[in-house]
């Protein structure tokens, strides 16, 4: 639409190598249930950049963008410039590696990391104009672009698990725009459910889903691709 042609406001130099990367970093951060409240909770984060991306990451500030997102900044915040130093002062261990992601978008990145209690990873790409595409989270393949409020739910792969989750959402009067369900681990009997919503869920709903019997973990990704700066 016309609004994304005359904007958004971002920290340069590149909407795909910088702004989109901040968004991927921020999406990763949201996977940790305790982090939004505690900036210091992250211990260690590793970034694997597709080869061409790695070779140019310093000149594009891709490293600063990814780290800026991971520690919670938005693509229009000037703190992104000094994110590496901020991460160091927060005691977060950061490392960058070159990798190859064949058959995926050239601007693909894998972000993995841990807090004291959780470990997650995310694979995604910055596809241009600050748009992103998340293709995998913790072993579950998906295709989400951060334009909807999204729930990532790990649950036991038992009959009725999905209906309990969906019922919880519908009793709050919320509409589901897209839903993916994948079995991620047959041995442990686990599945991952990705739900894109039309409305922003409240904390009450999130903790209600978290307490459902088959649910093991809930992460909430707010709209990542938000135009307003």
């Amino acid at each position, binding site marked *: *639409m*016309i*609004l994304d*042609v*005359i*904007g*958004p*406001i*971002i*920290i*340069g*130099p*590149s*909407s*795909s190598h*910088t*702004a989109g990367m901040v968004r991927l970093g921020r999406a990763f951060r949201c996977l940790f249930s305790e982090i939004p409240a505690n900036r210091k909770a992250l211990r260690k984060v590793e970034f694997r950049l597709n080869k*061409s991306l790695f*070779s*140019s990451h*310093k*000149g*594009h*500030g891709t490293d*600063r963008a990814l780290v800026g997102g991971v520690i919670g900044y938005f693509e*229009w915040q*000037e703190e*992104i*410039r000094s994110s590496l130093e901020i991460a160091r002062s927060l005691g977060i261990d950061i490392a960058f590696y070159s990798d190859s992601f064949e058959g995926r978008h050239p601007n693909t990145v894998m972000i993995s990391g841990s807090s004291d209690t959780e470990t997650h990873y995310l694979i995604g790409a910055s596809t*241009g*104009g*600050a748009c992103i595409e998340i293709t995998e989270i913790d072993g579950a393949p998906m295709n989400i672009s951060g334009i909807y409020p999204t729930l990532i739910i790990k649950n036991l792969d038992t009959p009725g698990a999905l209906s309990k989750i969906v019922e919880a959402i519908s009793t709050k009067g919320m509409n589901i725009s897209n839903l993916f369900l994948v079995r991620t681990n047959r041995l442990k009997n686990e599945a991952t459910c990705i739900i894109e919503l039309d409305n922003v869920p409240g904390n009450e709903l999130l903790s209600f889903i978290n307490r459902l019997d088959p649910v093991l973990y809930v992460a909430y990704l707010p709209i990542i691709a938000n*135009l*307003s*700066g």
Partner: protein
Amino acid sequence: MDFRKLIDTAISTGTDLYEIIANWYMLESGASSKEPLDFSKKMIMAMLKAYEERRKESVPSLTGWTGNIAEKLRDYTPKFLNERLLYALEVAISMAEHNASMGKIVACPTAGACGVVPGIVLSLKRFDNVSITKLSQALVIAGAVGECIKEKASISGAVAGCQAEIGTATAMASSIIVYITDSTNYEALYSAPALALKSLMGLVCDPVGGFVEVPCVKRNAFGVSIAYTAAEMALAGIKSLIPFDEVAEAMGKIGRSLPESLKETGEGGIAATPTAKKLLREFINRSDNR
């Protein structure tokens, strides 16, 4: 969407083109017809702020290849150009340099081409005292021009080369000048972006090292001068024989037929010259030692 259709609707209903575009936005997005103007105002204010920020300090870019170009124009008395154009060039380069040093800019339509539209907007404000509201309405027109190009071709250098970035920015900027000068000169409003885009057709995206610096920063200044030229020609009654919507389509076709090496990969064009390779080697050695 054809830009022609928007213009024809404005003519047949006797309504200002800005109103037509705001209503079109409302129908497409379901949001309020006020949203484009509010957003546009915010972008104009951000452009003004970014320029002010840049004037305070000339931070070098991440590679150190640019950073003091705008300063040179600022301290220079033009021999051929008028004061307005020199100022517009300086603003365009200031913005592009701000972007290259991780400054906060408006990606209009992209970060690499972020200097062209502010160059025009700030010079119209300074030399013609145009109000922020009027400039914001003009930016909405520019948004429609950019959106038409995005739909028919692309606004990404990686997809269609620099013609899609500086080319689109220049087409957008030319429509701002015409709208501000004579908002009901529909012939000129339709011709200016076509003339601008045609003059940058085929421009490749060949940044040294893949970074948004060389030649991107300086190209923003050329975008500004072409935007003024295209607007001036259109206002003089010169018509683009090929209509804007067809020019946009043609630009997309050229973009698709460009080799990958000339689409933001940093492998062809000036990026493949001996000097470019030397600059890149030096930068990599420097950053490895940091």
